[in-house]
């Protein structure tokens, strides 16, 4: 079972890990920890899925009015 200290470190670095902002050493340390710690793995899964929901809000069907406007712009370019 993972030690408490390892879990505290993992929780502190989790968001940067998910952001791809950890250096190589910290990232592999985190990956090893997540392979062995169910609690941190569940936390990472949850944060990752919540993050995916946020990312999905960056896609929305463009209205026809915008498509027409862009086509008009392209013709003038």
């Amino acid at each position: 079972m993972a030690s408490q200290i390892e879990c505290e470190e993992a929780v502190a670095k989790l968001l940067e890990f998910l952001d791809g902002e950890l250096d190589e050493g910290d990232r592999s340390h985190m990956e090893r920890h997540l392979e062995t710690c169910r609690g941190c793995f569940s936390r990472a899964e949850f944060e990752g899925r919540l993050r995916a929901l946020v990312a999905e809000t960056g896609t929305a069907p463009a209205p026809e009015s915008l498509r027409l406007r862009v086509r008009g712009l392209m013709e003038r370019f």
Partner: protein
Amino acid sequence: MPQPRGRDAARRLARRDSGGAAGGRPTGGRTGDERRRVFQAEVERLMDRLYGTAIRLTRNGADAEDLVAEALTRAWSRLDGLEDLQAFEKWIFRILTNTFVSSRRGPRETPASELEGEEEADGSSLFDRLHEPFLLWWGNPEQRLLDRLLCEDVTRALDGLPDPFRLAVVLVDVEGFSYAEASETLSVPVGTVRSRLSRGRRLFQDAIWHRAEELGLTPQGPQGQE
């Protein structure tokens, strides 16, 4: 295992999407007609994401349409500066974001420093709050929450964030910017991006927690009072 987002994800996305019209070929040597066709094809391919991101930035459809149109006009005028069309996607989203950010500089902008001490978030993460012992009676509380959250719940929570925090979250979590890229775009140090992101995410999770209460997924919600 959960996969990190950000630059790595953007690279994977770029590789996945490299079958688009750009095909990763450099712009140099193309004729004007070829450049126009490539530009049009890429814009068409990315249109829903450009518009969706513009809505997250502006928070309303009409302003989002104006933003996309202005960003595309800027992008076209700068297309000669884009050496590698494989970078088109990253490049066009940076222009979209920079166009928005530059339009907001001035009196309308609320400096993050004015928000210090306001909009304090609860110290606990959403995961920790969902894992209070009494909620574990219900099995897997985070799964229940994620299953019941709707896109509009997420957008409402995001749109309700104070601007400096919202922008940091949108740039990193929606657009996949690295901290360094967000820092450059927002003209603030990387440490400031990090702290705005942290606070923005915590406020976002607070809003989602309140939504969980409305949905009856906490002891204070309707189900919890039964």
